[in-house]
């Protein structure tokens, strides 16, 4: 029972990360219709930027986190402007190839600047405590709480602010939004910034727990894609739910079946589900 609870706790923690990363991806994919395959690599970059501010410049954890979010937000704006906007109207596969080019670039960039060895920032909250017989560290609880706060915050942003409504309008009908005078390009830039900044947030919270490495973005990016497809393109609740479910599947599968094949569960689940329903679990019917 304790093992089970421990795995569930870990699963929720992983799931929190997945949920945040998938949330950012589903915003970009659903609203801008851009398959930003480099999303996992932007997460990776966010982790390294936090490392730079925290370990290299010696800023505090929260300040580093904020700086990382701001910088990654700017990276997102630049990426939208330089990489994806010129490709509007081209065959969709070109977006995908451009994203692969970006991820190759980002990974090589991290490799050139920080080197291939794993880096870790010192845990700002290393204290542990016992709860229901399982061991928790404050940092891990913080990940869960921060994810929940972010999800709630984003929900209110989308539903209660004008900017959120604008983003939703563009998602629903791009041409219609243009006709009502919405600057679609500005909305695209903002959406990208939100997406990359939230990825940076997730990476910052996890960087004291897991090693940073240039290749860590690839698998996470693919998992985020899986979640987005299963949860339905552009569906925020789908991304959140999918994130937590995937985290739990992995933690339980890894704990009880095989740790080495932990990642296979996620990819296998996707292949299985898409083979039954080719447009995703909550996907719309193809036009």
């Amino acid at each position, binding site marked *: 029972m304790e093992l089970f609870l421990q795995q569930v706790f870990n699963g929720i923690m992983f799931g929190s990360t997945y949920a945040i990363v998938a949330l950012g991806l589903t915003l970009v994919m659903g609203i801008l219709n851009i*398959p930003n395959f480099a999303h996992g690599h932007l997460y990776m970059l966010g982790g390294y930027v936090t490392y730079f501010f925290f370990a290299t410049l010696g800023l505090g954890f929260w300040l580093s986190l904020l700086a990382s979010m701001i910088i990654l937000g700017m990276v997102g704006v630049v990426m939208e402007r*330089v*990489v994806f906007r*010129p*490709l509007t109207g*081209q065959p*969709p*596969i*070109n977006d*995908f*190839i*451009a994203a*692969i*080019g*970006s*991820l*190759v*670039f*980002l*990974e*090589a*960039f991290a*490799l*050139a600047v920080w080197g291939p060895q794993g880096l870790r920032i010192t845990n700002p909250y290393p204290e542990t405590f016992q709860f229901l017989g399982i061991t928790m560290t404050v940092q891990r609880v913080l990940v869960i709480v921060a994810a929940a706060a972010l999800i709630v915050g984003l929900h209110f942003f989308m539903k209660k602010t004008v900017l959120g409504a604008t983003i939703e309008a563009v998602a629903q009908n791009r041409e219609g939004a243009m006709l009502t005078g919405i600057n679609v390009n500005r909305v695209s830039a903002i959406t990208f910034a939100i997406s990359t900044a939230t990825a940076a947030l997730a990476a910052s919270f996890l960087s004291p727990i897991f090693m940073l490495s240039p290749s860590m973005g*690839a*698998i996470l990016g*693919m998992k985020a*894609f*899986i979640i987005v*497809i299963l949860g339905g393109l552009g569906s925020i609740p789908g991304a959140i739910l999918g994130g937590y479910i995937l985290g739990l599947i992995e933690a339980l599968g890894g704990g009880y079946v095989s740790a*080495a*094949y932990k*990642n*296979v569960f996620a*990819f*296998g689940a*996707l*292949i299985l589900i*898409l*083979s039954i329903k*080719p*447009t*995703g679990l909550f996907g719309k019917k*193809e036009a």
Partner: protein
Amino acid sequence: MFTKPIHIKLFFLAVLIAALLLPLFISDAYMFQVVIMSILFAIATCAMNLIIGFTGQASLAHGAFFGIGAYGVAILTKAGVSFWLALPAAAVMAVLIGLPVGLISLRTRGHYFAIVTLCFGVIMWIVAGNWIELTGGENGIFGIAPPGDILVPLIGRIDFSSQAAQYYLALAFLLLTLWALYRIVYSVFGLTFMAVRNNEALADAVGINTFTTKLISFEAANFIAALAGGLYAIVIGAVSPSAAGYGLTFNFLIYLILGGIATLSGSVIGAFAIPILMESLQFLQDYQLLIFGALLVVVIIYFPMGFVGGLRRLNQIIADRRRRKKSEAVHVSG
């Protein structure tokens, strides 16, 4: 309609003669190895071109099928099977594994297909790294013997332990691949591939079985990729999970896009120019992928048809200008 002008034919002939004479001019064993690897990558890239370039389905499991070929040959030759049997067996294995993968993934379209095939690629890569009894895990399989001698009538016994012999073996497979692809692409059957790429709904409406067409293209690409992988195993003499990884897929994609998608020569040019360029830019070792990643983005935005596509456009512009001059001359004299 499909015949090429005579100067292009002569150019191809010159390239072929140069390729046949190349071993006489390369003294550096390392550089020779790079050239042989480029040939193998060219074979795999040509195969990728068939499914991505001509059929329009972004299969990102390509590296996995290359890996199946490499591991298949490694495992079978280690078990005592002759290379000449192991190579076709590994390629057939790739087709058999590709069948359920294709049946499942080809039901999806566009981005979804790319992601599903990529997931399959990642699964293969994880399996290659963890199924230690079969694949040797992260260390891979070492000491794969070169192919056994074969007796050819008139020529005699050919020994494949030398680099030059392996070069000609790889070159023969590249020519075979190009010939096969040429026959496929410029046939009515090849036209159905392109019809599916250009407008799947329309292709369906005129009576093309689009699913079967895509599946055949996918499987043909897998078969050729596995052949290239099998040759890779004996040329390098070892395989490791990186020979089945998605990094390899991305490399092929870079060769394909930079060389020129949907052109037969483009994939060969890309697969040759880029690795050799990388070797000669050794001082940029750490920044190579930085450059190629950025280059991929620039090319897809500004020159989506790559190097060969760019050449063709240039050719077109020159031809147009000439025609305009000629018609102007006619107007003046008339």
